[in-house]
Protein backbone atom coordinates (compact mmCIF):
# COMPACT_ATOMS: atom_id res chain seq x y z
CA UNK A 1 0.00 0.00 0.00
CA UNK A 2 2.80 2.42 0.91
CA UNK A 3 4.57 2.02 -2.47
CA UNK A 4 1.31 2.65 -4.36
CA UNK A 5 0.61 5.79 -2.32
CA UNK A 6 4.20 6.93 -2.90
CA UNK A 7 3.89 6.53 -6.68
CA UNK A 8 0.57 8.40 -6.74
CA UNK A 9 1.99 11.19 -4.58
CA UNK A 10 4.97 11.41 -6.98
CA UNK A 11 2.65 11.72 -9.97
CA UNK A 12 0.68 14.41 -8.14
CA UNK A 13 3.95 16.21 -7.46
CA UNK A 14 4.83 16.11 -11.18
CA UNK A 15 1.44 17.61 -12.14
CA UNK A 16 1.84 20.29 -9.43
CA UNK A 17 5.25 21.17 -10.90
CA UNK A 18 3.74 21.45 -14.37
CA UNK A 19 0.95 23.77 -13.16
CA UNK A 20 3.25 25.94 -11.06
CA UNK A 21 5.73 26.14 -13.94
CA UNK A 22 3.00 27.38 -16.31
CA UNK A 23 1.64 29.80 -13.72
CA UNK A 24 5.07 31.30 -13.07
CA UNK A 25 5.87 31.62 -16.80
CA UNK A 26 2.79 33.74 -17.33
CA UNK A 27 4.18 36.24 -14.85
CA UNK A 28 7.94 35.95 -15.22
CA UNK A 29 9.32 36.63 -18.71
CA UNK A 30 13.03 36.14 -18.57
CA UNK A 31 15.55 33.59 -19.84
CA UNK A 32 16.31 32.73 -16.22
CA UNK A 33 14.33 29.56 -15.35
CA UNK A 34 12.83 30.92 -12.15
CA UNK A 35 9.98 28.37 -12.04
CA UNK A 36 12.24 25.31 -11.74
CA UNK A 37 14.46 27.09 -9.22
CA UNK A 38 11.48 28.00 -7.01
CA UNK A 39 10.04 24.48 -7.35
CA UNK A 40 13.31 22.85 -6.29
CA UNK A 41 13.80 25.22 -3.34
CA UNK A 42 10.23 24.83 -2.00
CA UNK A 43 10.35 21.04 -2.47
CA UNK A 44 13.65 20.89 -0.60
CA UNK A 45 12.16 22.97 2.23
CA UNK A 46 9.22 20.58 2.48
CA UNK A 47 11.41 17.44 2.52
CA UNK A 48 13.52 19.09 5.26
CA UNK A 49 10.41 19.63 7.39
CA UNK A 50 9.30 16.03 6.76
CA UNK A 51 12.72 14.61 7.64
CA UNK A 52 12.74 16.78 10.76
CA UNK A 53 9.30 15.52 11.79
CA UNK A 54 10.62 11.94 11.57
CA UNK A 55 14.05 12.62 13.14
CA UNK A 56 13.02 14.97 15.95
CA UNK A 57 9.21 14.80 16.09
CA UNK A 58 8.90 11.03 16.40
CA UNK A 59 6.56 10.86 13.40
CA UNK A 60 6.39 7.54 11.51
CA UNK A 61 8.79 7.34 8.56
CA UNK A 62 5.80 6.44 6.37
CA UNK A 63 5.17 10.18 6.07
CA UNK A 64 8.64 10.78 4.76
CA UNK A 65 8.28 7.97 2.24
CA UNK A 66 4.91 9.00 0.82
CA UNK A 67 5.28 12.79 0.98
CA UNK A 68 9.08 13.04 0.80
CA UNK A 69 10.13 10.30 -1.63
CA UNK A 70 6.74 10.53 -3.35
CA UNK A 71 5.42 14.07 -3.56
CA UNK A 72 8.65 16.07 -3.09
CA UNK A 73 10.56 13.69 -5.35
CA UNK A 74 8.00 14.01 -8.16
CA UNK A 75 7.58 17.75 -7.62
CA UNK A 76 11.29 18.65 -7.70
CA UNK A 77 13.39 17.77 -10.71
CA UNK A 78 17.08 17.47 -11.31
CA UNK A 79 16.86 16.64 -15.02
CA UNK A 80 14.99 19.81 -16.00
CA UNK A 81 17.34 21.95 -13.90
CA UNK A 82 20.36 20.39 -15.65
CA UNK A 83 18.76 20.72 -19.07
CA UNK A 84 17.93 24.37 -18.51
CA UNK A 85 21.53 25.09 -17.53
CA UNK A 86 22.71 23.43 -20.76
CA UNK A 87 20.26 25.53 -22.79
CA UNK A 88 21.50 28.74 -21.16
CA UNK A 89 25.12 27.79 -21.98
CA UNK A 90 24.15 26.97 -25.58
CA UNK A 91 22.47 30.36 -25.91
CA UNK A 92 25.64 32.07 -24.72
CA UNK A 93 24.12 33.09 -21.39
CA UNK A 94 27.00 31.77 -19.32
CA UNK A 95 26.45 33.99 -16.29
CA UNK A 96 22.79 33.02 -16.06
CA UNK A 97 23.75 29.35 -16.47
CA UNK A 98 26.23 29.54 -13.59
CA UNK A 99 23.75 31.55 -11.52
CA UNK A 100 21.04 28.96 -12.18
CA UNK A 101 23.25 26.05 -11.07
CA UNK A 102 24.69 27.80 -8.00
CA UNK A 103 21.43 29.40 -6.78
CA UNK A 104 19.54 26.10 -7.18
CA UNK A 105 22.14 24.13 -5.24
CA UNK A 106 22.87 26.61 -2.46
CA UNK A 107 19.28 27.72 -1.79
CA UNK A 108 17.83 24.19 -2.03
CA UNK A 109 20.35 22.87 0.50
CA UNK A 110 19.77 25.95 2.72
CA UNK A 111 15.98 25.52 2.50
CA UNK A 112 16.24 21.82 3.37
CA UNK A 113 18.52 22.55 6.33
CA UNK A 114 16.16 25.36 7.37
CA UNK A 115 13.16 23.03 7.26
CA UNK A 116 15.02 20.47 9.36
CA UNK A 117 16.13 23.15 11.86
CA UNK A 118 12.62 24.60 12.05
CA UNK A 119 11.18 21.31 13.33
CA UNK A 120 14.11 20.91 15.75
CA UNK A 121 13.47 24.38 17.23
CA UNK A 122 9.68 23.95 17.50
Amino acid at each position, binding site marked *: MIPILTFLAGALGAVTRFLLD*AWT*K*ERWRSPFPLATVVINITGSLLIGVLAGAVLFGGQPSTWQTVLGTGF*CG*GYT*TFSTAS*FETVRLIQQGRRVLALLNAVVSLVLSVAACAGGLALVWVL
Partner: protein
Amino acid sequence: MTADRPGVDHTDDHDDATGTAAPMMSDDPHAELLTDPDAPAKPLRPLHLRPSAMAWIFAGGIAGTALRYYIERLLPHDGASWPWATFLINLSGAFILGGLLEGLALLGDDSGWRRRARLCAGTGFCGAYTTYSAFALEIVLLGRHGHFGTALSYGLVSVVGGVLTAWLGIVVMERVHRRRTRA
Protein backbone atom coordinates in the same frame (compact mmCIF):
# COMPACT_ATOMS: atom_id res chain seq x y z
CA MET B 1 9.67 25.00 -29.44
CA THR B 2 8.38 27.48 -31.98
CA ALA B 3 9.77 30.37 -30.00
CA ASP B 4 13.20 30.33 -31.60
CA ARG B 5 11.96 30.16 -35.17
CA PRO B 6 11.33 33.23 -37.28
CA GLY B 7 8.00 33.70 -39.04
CA VAL B 8 5.90 32.00 -36.41
CA ASP B 9 3.29 34.20 -34.85
CA HIS B 10 3.34 34.28 -31.09
CA THR B 11 -0.32 34.22 -30.25
CA ASP B 12 0.23 32.28 -27.09
CA ASP B 13 1.37 33.71 -23.82
CA HIS B 14 3.49 30.86 -22.64
CA ASP B 15 5.97 29.86 -25.25
CA ASP B 16 7.71 33.06 -26.20
CA ALA B 17 9.53 33.71 -22.95
CA THR B 18 12.55 31.77 -24.21
CA GLY B 19 12.84 33.62 -27.49
CA THR B 20 12.75 37.24 -26.42
CA ALA B 21 16.48 37.93 -26.65
CA ALA B 22 16.84 37.11 -30.32
CA PRO B 23 20.38 38.35 -31.10
CA MET B 24 22.04 35.48 -29.28
CA MET B 25 20.07 32.81 -31.05
CA SER B 26 22.39 32.65 -34.07
CA ASP B 27 25.21 31.39 -31.85
CA ASP B 28 22.99 28.77 -30.34
CA PRO B 29 23.99 25.36 -31.70
CA HIS B 30 20.70 23.90 -30.50
CA ALA B 31 18.16 26.61 -31.21
CA GLU B 32 15.61 23.90 -31.97
CA LEU B 33 15.54 22.91 -28.30
CA LEU B 34 13.38 24.43 -25.61
CA THR B 35 15.05 26.44 -22.89
CA ASP B 36 12.53 25.00 -20.51
CA PRO B 37 11.08 21.60 -21.40
CA ASP B 38 8.18 22.07 -19.00
CA ALA B 39 6.96 25.18 -20.79
CA PRO B 40 3.52 24.72 -22.28
CA ALA B 41 3.62 25.05 -26.05
CA LYS B 42 1.09 26.79 -28.25
CA PRO B 43 -2.33 25.52 -27.22
CA LEU B 44 -5.94 26.10 -28.19
CA ARG B 45 -6.79 26.25 -24.53
CA PRO B 46 -3.72 26.80 -22.33
CA LEU B 47 -2.02 23.43 -22.14
CA HIS B 48 -1.86 23.42 -18.38
CA LEU B 49 -5.64 23.67 -18.16
CA ARG B 50 -6.18 20.60 -20.29
CA PRO B 51 -6.97 17.40 -18.37
CA SER B 52 -5.32 15.27 -21.08
CA ALA B 53 -1.98 17.04 -20.58
CA MET B 54 -2.18 16.43 -16.84
CA ALA B 55 -3.12 12.78 -17.40
CA TRP B 56 -0.01 12.19 -19.54
CA ILE B 57 2.20 13.81 -16.92
CA PHE B 58 0.49 11.86 -14.14
CA ALA B 59 1.12 8.55 -15.94
CA GLY B 60 4.78 9.37 -16.57
CA GLY B 61 5.09 10.60 -12.99
CA ILE B 62 3.92 7.26 -11.57
CA ALA B 63 6.51 5.36 -13.64
CA GLY B 64 9.33 7.77 -12.79
CA THR B 65 8.58 7.76 -9.05
CA ALA B 66 8.26 3.96 -9.02
CA LEU B 67 11.63 3.45 -10.73
CA ARG B 68 13.33 5.88 -8.34
CA TYR B 69 11.62 4.25 -5.34
CA TYR B 70 12.98 0.80 -6.20
CA ILE B 71 16.48 2.03 -7.07
CA GLU B 72 16.62 3.91 -3.73
CA ARG B 73 15.55 0.71 -1.96
CA LEU B 74 18.18 -1.31 -3.78
CA LEU B 75 20.95 1.15 -2.83
CA PRO B 76 19.80 2.81 0.41
CA HIS B 77 21.68 5.86 1.67
CA ASP B 78 23.16 5.57 5.18
CA GLY B 79 23.84 9.29 5.71
CA ALA B 80 27.60 8.79 5.74
CA SER B 81 28.69 7.51 2.33
CA TRP B 82 28.19 8.67 -1.24
CA PRO B 83 24.46 8.58 -2.12
CA TRP B 84 24.85 6.35 -5.18
CA ALA B 85 21.15 5.77 -5.85
CA THR B 86 20.17 9.45 -6.20
CA PHE B 87 23.45 10.22 -7.95
CA LEU B 88 22.89 7.58 -10.65
CA ILE B 89 19.18 8.44 -10.93
CA ASN B 90 19.82 12.16 -11.44
CA LEU B 91 22.63 11.73 -13.96
CA SER B 92 20.84 9.07 -15.99
CA GLY B 93 17.61 11.12 -15.89
CA ALA B 94 19.41 14.22 -17.14
CA PHE B 95 20.90 12.15 -19.99
CA ILE B 96 17.50 10.71 -20.94
CA LEU B 97 15.79 14.13 -20.84
CA GLY B 98 18.49 15.72 -23.01
CA GLY B 99 18.26 12.92 -25.56
CA LEU B 100 14.47 12.85 -25.49
CA LEU B 101 13.96 16.59 -26.04
CA GLU B 102 16.63 16.72 -28.75
CA GLY B 103 15.13 13.68 -30.48
CA LEU B 104 11.59 15.08 -30.37
CA ALA B 105 12.78 18.50 -31.58
CA LEU B 106 14.59 16.90 -34.54
CA LEU B 107 11.49 14.92 -35.49
CA GLY B 108 9.23 17.95 -35.72
CA ASP B 109 7.41 20.68 -33.84
CA ASP B 110 5.87 20.30 -30.42
CA SER B 111 2.43 19.00 -31.33
CA GLY B 112 0.44 15.77 -31.52
CA TRP B 113 2.25 12.63 -30.35
CA ARG B 114 5.52 14.53 -29.89
CA ARG B 115 3.92 16.82 -27.33
CA ARG B 116 2.28 13.88 -25.56
CA ALA B 117 5.66 12.13 -25.49
CA ARG B 118 7.32 15.26 -24.08
CA LEU B 119 4.68 15.60 -21.34
CA CYS B 120 4.62 11.90 -20.44
CA ALA B 121 8.30 10.93 -20.79
CA GLY B 122 9.87 14.35 -20.18
CA THR B 123 7.80 16.41 -17.71
CA GLY B 124 6.25 13.31 -16.13
CA PHE B 125 8.78 10.48 -16.17
CA CYS B 126 12.17 12.26 -16.19
CA GLY B 127 10.86 15.01 -13.90
CA ALA B 128 9.56 12.59 -11.29
CA TYR B 129 12.38 10.06 -11.73
CA THR B 130 15.05 12.65 -10.94
CA THR B 131 14.83 14.61 -7.71
CA TYR B 132 16.32 17.75 -6.27
CA SER B 133 14.71 17.40 -2.83
CA ALA B 134 16.29 14.02 -1.95
CA PHE B 135 19.57 15.35 -3.37
CA ALA B 136 19.41 18.41 -1.06
CA LEU B 137 18.38 16.28 1.93
CA GLU B 138 21.30 13.90 1.41
CA ILE B 139 23.73 16.82 1.36
CA VAL B 140 22.20 18.16 4.60
CA LEU B 141 22.33 14.74 6.29
CA LEU B 142 25.94 14.20 5.19
CA GLY B 143 26.80 17.58 6.68
CA ARG B 144 24.83 16.83 9.85
CA HIS B 145 26.93 13.73 10.39
CA GLY B 146 30.12 15.74 9.89
CA HIS B 147 30.93 14.44 6.39
CA PHE B 148 31.45 17.91 4.91
CA GLY B 149 33.88 16.79 2.24
CA THR B 150 31.51 14.15 0.90
CA ALA B 151 28.57 16.60 1.11
CA LEU B 152 30.42 19.28 -0.86
CA SER B 153 31.87 16.96 -3.49
CA TYR B 154 28.53 15.14 -3.89
CA GLY B 155 26.77 18.48 -4.51
CA LEU B 156 29.32 19.81 -6.98
CA VAL B 157 29.91 16.55 -8.88
CA SER B 158 26.15 16.01 -9.22
CA VAL B 159 25.42 19.51 -10.56
CA VAL B 160 28.35 19.53 -13.00
CA GLY B 161 27.68 15.88 -13.90
CA GLY B 162 23.99 16.62 -14.54
CA VAL B 163 24.86 19.43 -16.95
CA LEU B 164 27.40 17.21 -18.75
CA THR B 165 25.07 14.21 -19.06
CA ALA B 166 22.13 16.36 -20.25
CA TRP B 167 24.45 17.85 -22.88
CA LEU B 168 25.75 14.37 -23.76
CA GLY B 169 22.16 13.17 -24.26
CA ILE B 170 21.57 16.03 -26.72
CA VAL B 171 24.80 15.34 -28.63
CA VAL B 172 24.30 11.56 -28.79
CA MET B 173 20.73 11.96 -30.07
CA GLU B 174 21.87 14.49 -32.66
CA ARG B 175 24.52 12.03 -33.93
CA VAL B 176 22.04 9.17 -34.04
CA HIS B 177 19.57 11.31 -35.97
CA ARG B 178 22.22 12.50 -38.44
CA ARG B 179 23.39 8.94 -39.09
CA ARG B 180 19.86 7.66 -39.62
CA THR B 181 18.82 10.44 -41.98
CA ARG B 182 22.01 10.03 -44.03
CA ALA B 183 21.54 6.27 -44.44
